[in-house]
């Protein structure tokens, strides 16, 4: 198929260059089919009409027909022009791509709701020792930093870190056990 196209197109183009207008018409028609196929394959999302690429490519073929060397294969030449024009059209559209928010609203993620209730938090904290509880509550619930918490509780930062780490580990242990208990 490719090979027959190649020989046929090269023959038509050679005839066209030596002045055969019918051959040129046939050439452009066949070229249009090939480019249309390629453009349809490459354009995977909407917004660009494959026919735009076909038109641009045919125009370029006409204006730049002297750049084909008559002893060279014609398909690579043709496809290189089509690819250049395809990229060109993509670039132009890309620069002013406008999308209505309504069109893509369904693909946007819904805002996630807070999945942990206050009751669950206090239930988790209740399982900790008083020291760990105040550290974990200060950091995870009130959102204080390690150093703020250290100052507030009059502890060293290292002590706060250790208490926080152990507290979180204890909560994780406790709740994963509860979960596996349900199974």
């Amino acid at each position, binding site marked *: 198929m490719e090979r027959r196209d190649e020989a046929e197109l090269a023959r038509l183009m050679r005839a066209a260059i030596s002045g055969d207008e019918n051959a040129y018409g046939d050439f452009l028609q066949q070229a249009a089919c090939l480019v249309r196929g390629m453009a349809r394959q490459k354009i995977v999302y909407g917004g660009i009409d494959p026919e735009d690429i076909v038109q641009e490519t045919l125009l*370029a073929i006409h204006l*730049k027909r002297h750049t*084909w060397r008559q002893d060279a294969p014609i398909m690579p030449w043709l496809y*290189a022009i089509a690819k250049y024009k395809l990229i060109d059209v993509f670039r132009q559209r890309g620069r002013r791509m406008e999308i209505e928010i309504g069109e893509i609203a369904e693909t946007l993620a819904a805002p996630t709701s807070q999945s942990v209730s206050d009751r669950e938090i206090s239930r988790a904290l209740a399982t900790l020792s008083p020291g760990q509880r105040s550290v974990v509550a200060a950091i995870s619930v009130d959102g204080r930093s390690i150093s703020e918490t250290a100052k507030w509780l009059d502890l060293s930062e290292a002590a706060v870190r250790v208490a926080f780490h152990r507290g979180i580990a204890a909560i994780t242990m406790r709740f994963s056990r509860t979960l596996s208990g349900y199974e």
Partner: protein
Amino acid sequence: MPLLAVWSWAVGFSIAISAVVFLTVFGPRPDIATAIETPRFLFKFLVTITLAVSAFYCVRALARPGESGRNTILCLAAAPALIVTAVVVELFILPPDIWSATMIGTNSIVCLIYIPLIGLGPLVILMLALRHSAPTRPGLAGAVAGVLAGGIAATFYAAQCNNDSPLFVATWYTIAITGLAVLGAIGANQLARW
């Protein structure tokens, strides 16, 4: 006119313009008769002519859609390979304490002015040839056209320049030709889109 003929004419005109600028603005160095017998002087021409010829084949391929420029781009490495080899040899010959003085030479600023000056005419002609062609990568084709203009200009300038050390050539000629390549890339991106 077939594209091959266009490029041959473009290069012919480029060489002619460079020759005119060279002869009217400065001309060859006074001691050219003795210089021409030294291999170091002749080596400069080997490098610049190799660069110009390889850039010519490369830009001609880049000017045509569907012609793979990949192989011809590899040819472009020939001149740099020559000059790098010569630099290594030069470093073995010269004592280290005169390396930097040889590299800086006596007229590096002149080199940086004259090569672009001689190369500007060829660059304009080559841009027009590119505009008539159909480069699918205009920037790259323009840069190689700049290297070609630089190669032609450097070949003429080498006859005027009295620094024959590969250290000097590798430094200042490279900077000057790179400047033309950048100009060519920018120019072709504007002029040779189609």
